[in-house]
């Protein structure tokens, strides 16, 4: 399809502000009389607050107020709290102080005496599942979004039945299956049964959590560091205890969220509560270490997978069990996504998935870039390589034979069944990637040794959902002829809010410099959109912008017909005019958009937004209602048919050099091909592919939480101890491409692409490490220099096979 804007590079409107420093992030805002808020964090991993004495602090000059959990709406465990009287992890906020400056607030926090009664705590899910094991919450140890808080203890026999290093498998809290698993294993030529461990770790957003709030004319104004915008409004309003219509939410820029700021988070509401208590604006900004505690983390797994392979590599049966480390609160559904990821990547002929989400005394786990899929694929892909070796198959070929095409399926946890795909071209992604990387030649270098250095090559894949539907679009043509594209999705930094806006301009045949994107502030009247997460924006909001623009187009044609005679079908759009199809160059048979907007205002009704569709969300209704009478309003719910699940897939190839004397890895080559439909914005696509690959390198080789299990404290609460990769760790000229096959269920053919590149890269790197070591499986990630050294020297690893939150 030949587009004027879609698939072309452009400069998103916020880029200049960012590179010149003009962009204002949450902590850059100030308001008259503003107070600063500081937190008192729990010094214990689990305790009960028995007494708080803030009298000395309140006597200090400049201290205005102290707030505790008792001042706030009650949040039932295991949901994450704003403040708490029962901290369930080291660093959880217990109380907040507001003072005229941050130094005073900090000094005041130190003056407050908090008596704590220590309670049992636990760092390892399996320890909590053992009979009599400690629980992270005083009333339970198992919970997730879909599993009610409960206490689960497996039987000692479950543990005894697992041999040393094998995952015990007691009763799962959820499971699904399809096909005949036993028959599948019986028909297999090779059956592998392996355990694996994946690490929990922080998001490491450059901008720490921050929020500033004040109340004015019955409304609460909140500046918050957030990936999303209108989607965050209901949740934030709930934390504050107000109706969404009373909230003005401003989040124009976000210095990284990676899932941790996908929606409203509890601490974002603290300044609003403190502002209400004090009657003054309140600012809170987390320090780097505080971000580590009140931020979020990826959920780690302890898992076991049994896979049966036919002689040609086809997977006949796959049995997956995941014990998830949820952190101390509700956690996230990574463990469920792991099952879906495996089901689509390998299309097993029969499959069973079981999972149990277990609470540990560590910070809340939330969505982190490809939550579930991105840690799953790198755990299982090296095991696929083991089968390829045993079967004498090429490693691309064994993936290709199992890879989904458009007839493929993915298991949908909510619907409890295999769902069809809108389209999938993973075989093409593997083929194209193999060519881009020159796999046939490169694989000959596998195991080549030069001094202490050995070459490894690997291929990896990953999946994430790539689109949703059912949200609202809102555009407005003003009498000056400009198109205002109201985008409520948020701006986490991928520029997809702008890329998707161009779909509206494309539909209306607009010049891009005549378009204005309205974003970043509900005061700009933004529609109900999906949150900006989950690789979903490109697909989902290209649809909302398409339907809103299509509604505007219909109205333009109707107005022209009404003014100039004939029917709407007699007219079309060209050069920001409505023109007669039969006589397009006749000025008397045409209307400028500017004129049409004027007429729309005069006509009122649906044309000017006075009448609105019934099926739009109340947030969109309020936004469109506020704009009514200011131009021609295009507004619609995305009712475009979607009959299948939208996949985003990737194939990644890596060549590495491993120094067996130092355990150090150097990436020599990296190539990736995404199966993501039409590429909406090539520059954004490239920076997502590159950035996601950096994340993958971090996941594969560096990042993890380390906790001392005896004192329950983290060893890493800073950039230099958490160790996200630096550019010297990732300095490789990565080759990037896409399959470029348009998706049939998106009006411009796009699917999302931001997440799976991370898991695909981690998979490729880990497979390459394993390849360099002659097929050695670490069965955990990250793989650090000490692990490589131990493996190369034939020594035992320091960690126990199933240990988590460990070194």
């Amino acid at each position, binding site marked *: 399809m030949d587009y004027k804007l879609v698939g072309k590079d452009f400069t998103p409107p916020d880029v200049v502000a960012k590179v010149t420093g003009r962009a204002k992030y949450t902590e850059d805002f100030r308001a008259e009389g503003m107070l600063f808020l500081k937190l008192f964090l729990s010094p214990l991993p689990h305790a009960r607050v028995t007494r708080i004495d803030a009298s000395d602090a309140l006597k200090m000059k400049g201290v205005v107020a102290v707030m505790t959990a008792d001042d706030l709406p009650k949040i039932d465990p295991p949901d994450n709290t704003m403040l708490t009287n029962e901290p369930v992890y080291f660093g959880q906020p217990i109380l907040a102080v507001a003072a005229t400056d941050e130094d005073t607030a900090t000094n005041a926090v130190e003056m407050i005496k908090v008596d704590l009664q220590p309670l049992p705590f636990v760092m390892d899910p399996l320890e909590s599942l053992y009979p009599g094991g400690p629980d992270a919450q005083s009333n339970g140890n198992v919970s997730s979004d879909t599993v009610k808080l409960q206490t689960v203890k497996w039987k000692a026999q479950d543990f005894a039945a697992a041999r040393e290093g094998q995952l015990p498998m007691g009763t799962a809290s959820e499971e699904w299956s399809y096909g005949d698993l036993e028959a599948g294993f019986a028909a297999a030529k090779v059956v592998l049964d392996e355990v694996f461990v994946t690490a929990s770790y922080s998001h490491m957003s450059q901008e720490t959590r921050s929020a500033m709030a004040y109340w004015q004319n019955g409304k609460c104004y909140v500046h918050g560091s957030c990936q999303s915008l209108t989607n965050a409004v209901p949740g934030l309003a709930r934390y504050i205890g107000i109706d969404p219509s009373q909230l003005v939410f401003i989040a124009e820029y976000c210095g990284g969220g990676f899932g941790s700021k996908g929606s409203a988070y509890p601490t974002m509401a603290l300044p609003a509560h403190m502002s209400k208590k004090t009657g003054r604006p309140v600012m809170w900004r987390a320090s780097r270490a505080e971000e580590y505690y009140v931020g979020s983390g990826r959920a780690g797994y302890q898992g076991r997978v049994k896979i049966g392979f036919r002689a040609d590599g086809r997977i006949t049966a796959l049995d997956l069990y995941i014990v998830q480390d949820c952190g101390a609160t509700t956690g996230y559904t990574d463990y469920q996504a792991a099952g879906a990821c495996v089901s689509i990547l390998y299309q097993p002929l029969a499959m069973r998935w079981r999972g149990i989400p277990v609470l540990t005394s560590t910070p809340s786990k939330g969505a982190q870039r490809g939550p579930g899929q991105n840690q799953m694929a790198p755990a299982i892909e090296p095991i696929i390589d083991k089968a390829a070796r045993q079967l004498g198959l090429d490693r691309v070929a064994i993936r290709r034979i199992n890879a989904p095409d458009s007839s493929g399926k993915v298991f949908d946890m909510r619907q409890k069944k295999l769902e069809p795909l809108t389209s999938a071209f993973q075989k093409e992604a593997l083929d194209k990637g193999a060519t881009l990387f020159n796999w046939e030649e490169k694989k000959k270098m596998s195991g080549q040794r030069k001094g202490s250095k050995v070459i490894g090559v690997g291929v990896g894949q990953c999946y994430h959902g790539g689109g949703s539907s059912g949200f609202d679009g809102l555009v407005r043509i003003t009498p000056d002829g400009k198109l205002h594209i109201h985008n409520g999705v948020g701006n986490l930094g991928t520029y997809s809010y702008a890329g998707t806006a161009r779909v509206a301009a494309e539909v209306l045949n607009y010049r891009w410099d005549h378009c204005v994107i309205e974003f970043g502030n509900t005061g700009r009247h933004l529609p109900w959109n999906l949150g900006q997460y989950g690789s979903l924006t490109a697909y989902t909001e290209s649809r909302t912008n398409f339907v809103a623009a299509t509604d505007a187009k219909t109205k333009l044609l109707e107005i022209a017909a009404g003014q100039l005679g004939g029917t709407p079908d007699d007219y079309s759009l060209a050069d920001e005019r409505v023109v007669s199809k039969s006589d397009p160059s006749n000025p008397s048979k045409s209307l400028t958009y500017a004129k049409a907007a004027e007429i729309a205002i005069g006509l009122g009704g649906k044309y000017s937004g006075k009448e609105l569709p019934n099926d739009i969300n109340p947030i969109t209704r309020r936004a469109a209602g506020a704009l009514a009478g200011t131009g021609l309003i295009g507004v619609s719910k995305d009712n475009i048919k979607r009959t299948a699940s939208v996949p985003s897939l990737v194939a990644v190839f890596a060549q590495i050099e491993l120094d067996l004397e130092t355990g150090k890895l150097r990436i020599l080559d990296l190539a990736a091909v995404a199966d993501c439909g039409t590429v909406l914005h090539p520059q954004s696509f490239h920076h997502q592919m590159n950035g996601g690959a950096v994340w993958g390198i971090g996941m594969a080789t560096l990042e993890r939480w380390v906790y001392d299990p005896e004192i329950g404290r983290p060893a890493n609460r800073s950039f230099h101890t958490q160790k996200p990769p630096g550019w010297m*760790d990732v300095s490789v000229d990565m080759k990037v491409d896409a399959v470029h096959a348009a998706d049939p269920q998106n009006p411009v053919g796009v699917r999302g692409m931001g997440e799976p590149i991370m898991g695909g890269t981690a998979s490729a790197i880990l497979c390459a490490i394993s390849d360099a070591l002659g097929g050695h499986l670490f069965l955990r990630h990250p793989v650090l220099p000490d692990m490589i050294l131990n493996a190369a020297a034939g020594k035992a690893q320091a960690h126990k096979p199933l240990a988590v939150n460990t070194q």
Partner: protein
Amino acid sequence: MITDMMTPFELYQPSRVDDALALLNRYDKDAWKLAGGNDSFDWFKDRIKRPRAVIDLNGIAELKGVRETADGIEIGALTTLAEIARNPLVRQKYGLLADAARKVGSPQIRNSGTLGGNVAQDTRCWYYRDGLPCHRAGGNTCYASRPTSMNREHAIFGANRCMAVNASDTAPALVALEAKMVIRNPQGERVVEAKDFFIGPSVDITRMTILTPKDLLSAIRIPSKFANAQFYFEKVSDREAFDFALVNVASATIVKGGVIEQSSIACGGVESVPRHLKVVEDVARGERQNDATAKLVGQAAVRGAAPLNYNQFKIVLMQNLVARAIRGA
């Protein structure tokens, strides 16, 4: 539990060494000497160290720069690591130190970090840096040596109620180059060998160097003994930048006709001091510079190592690095 918010202190910014010494004399234990700040600000922001007076040494010109002397060079303690890494004099004759300086932290850290600060920095044991009341912090336990401790980065030598290691990259290089540390205090000046400058917990568990509160490290002198020798510096850390060494090695070797006439070698990240490997020097002396000798000295280097639960790999790593140093690659 409060981070990223310093407690207030009196800030002094003297422009002469004598003024700095007078301030140290006045405030004694309550004074904090500030060089590049990369170590200091961590302590301050975590509110674990709360000095009454901070003596910022950055304005003292006489503490900066590289000068040629009758027997080698003298480097002002406040000379930045970036300057040392690119200084022609250092690179030409004492490339070992330039290589080590270039491996510290990141460009930002090397631009602000100084040679004096790098060698005088405190240990990075995470338990200690977290403010826990361990032996080094004046308490009565070592959190890093319990059966469940997370001690991958800790010591394999010289434990004595403390398992912390010296984190400096330049310190082993200075030990290998047999550098002399020039120390001034209100009483005068003294010069000590680099290997005696660093002290372990058996000498004083609360300090990493012999510097007392009134002492100021003013300069580092590198004798010409190893000028233009065969140098080897290697640092292995998890990340290529902005990371501390798991183990590093610095060596200066004089080879004549393929035979090792003399070598001087030290390792960091394995003990609370840069570990001067005299045993390696003895084993290597008079041997041919080849793989067999490298293997031999590697084995010699790690004799007596006593690993903890998570740091056994350091034995292999140190053995390999020492072998590489003697092999020359």
